[in-house]
């Protein structure tokens, strides 16, 4: 027996009521929490299984927004035609998670709520300016994804709140890319991952959004780099200057951690890789 009580609500209102119970945890896909339960790393009094709530699994394109239910699996996101067209970096991030078996079960909401620093979909969501609709029996909050992770496996959500949906705005004619470095291709926990969005005009970067994961305690938007890139012509010189800047930012961010020499190099490498792709893309 892993936990005393198991609740399986069929609707969201029931789930929000169940989340009011003391010492319960939400169970999304389970690919992180089931391991933690099995190893007794977490011992809640009860679990609220969200797998029976159909409305949390929908992916729809409405107007100029993509709505992704928090219980959409990585496989659903990686293969969904709207996600691939509107936010290819998110589809690529979802496709890079774990193994086919993990992607068939793991969910985008769980990926954010578990708040691992290396969670692959989080930098893609952040770079896309995604918002999350968070609900509890007490009400609703709309948060920027950047606000939600606050530390290692920690978020700003209260115990009774559920992430219900992500809203990803459409970014017309933008270059997007997701990059990841892992020890191997399948089942690799990212040593670094990055989502990048560039609005380009005639070889010049008009607007940049860059988020890194697995550098520090949470994924984050690198605003200093974004400001540096904006308004500049994307050429070889800029790519090298940006790579040097990101090396300095990562070094400061990790202040003295032993992985710093490696992380700053791979942070620069993934940025270089993405900017070269963006330049080729823009030349076409």
């Amino acid at each position, binding site marked *: 027996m892993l936990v005393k009580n198991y609740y399986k609500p069929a609707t969201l209102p029931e789930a929000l009521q169940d989340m009011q119970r003391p010492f319960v945890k939400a169970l999304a*896909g389970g690919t992180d929490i*089931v391991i933690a339960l099995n190893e007794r790393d977490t011992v809640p009094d009860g*679990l609220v299984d969200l797998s029976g709530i159909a409305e949390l699994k929908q992916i729809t394109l409405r107007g100029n927004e993509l709505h992704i239910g928090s219980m959409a699996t990585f496989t659903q996101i990686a293969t969904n035609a709207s996600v691939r067209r509107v936010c290819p970096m998110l589809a690529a991030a979802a496709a890079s998670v774990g193994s086919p078996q*993990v992607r068939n*079960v793991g969910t985008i909401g769980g990926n954010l709520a578990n708040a691992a620093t290396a969670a692959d979909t989080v930098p893609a969501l952040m770079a896309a300016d995604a918002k999350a609709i968070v609900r509890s029996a007490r009400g609703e909050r709309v948060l920027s994804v950047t606000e939600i992770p606050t530390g290692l496996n920690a978020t700003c959500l209260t115990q009774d709140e559920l992430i219900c949906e992500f809203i990803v705005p459409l970014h017309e004619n933008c270059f997007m890319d997701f990059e990841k470095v892992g020890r191997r291709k399948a089942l690799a926990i990212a040593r670094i991952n990055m989502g990048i969005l560039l609005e380009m005009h005639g070889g010049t970067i008009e607007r940049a959004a860059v988020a890194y994961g697995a550098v520090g305690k949470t994924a984050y938007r690198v605003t200093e780099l974004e400001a540096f890139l904006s308004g500049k012509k994307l050429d070889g010189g800029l790519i090298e200057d940006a790579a040097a800047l990101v090396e300095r930012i990562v070094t400061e961010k990790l202040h003295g951690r032993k992985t710093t020499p490696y992380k700053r190099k791979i942070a620069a490498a993934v940025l270089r890789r993405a900017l070269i792709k963006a330049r080729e893309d823009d030349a076409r």
Partner: protein
Amino acid sequence: MTREMTFIINERTYTVQADPSMRLLDLIREVIGLTGTKEGCAEGECGACTVIMDGKAVTSCLILAGQAEGRRITTIEGVAKNGELSRLQKAFVECGAIQCGFCTPGMILSAKALLDENPHPTAEEIRTALSGNLCRCTGYTKILDAVQKASEDTD
């Protein structure tokens, strides 16, 4: 806390007293008694416990019984029909894709999930489909060959 739960495993309905917070792997092995599904790493890395749930390969060590309730599950025991190995299983035997056999049920189920959805996959698609299954005896070449062969053979 146990309660009465219903599972559809290998097209048979089982109604059992079980704890919804136990792992699907433990339910299959210890409550249902089908021990072809193997426990390797217990953390979703090795794929030995792979089963098919609603048409998708999943690692049964990462799923709780409560999540699997009412869903259609196939284990290795459900792959052969009427005592005869499936085309995929025969291909594993013919290609020598088995050594100790511990990873084989998971390999077969990952490959079956692929072939059920995509009967003629490319070599790359086969590699991706098996990327969540580890084998510590062999190289992977004979396993990949077996899946390829099964996708080419016709009954």
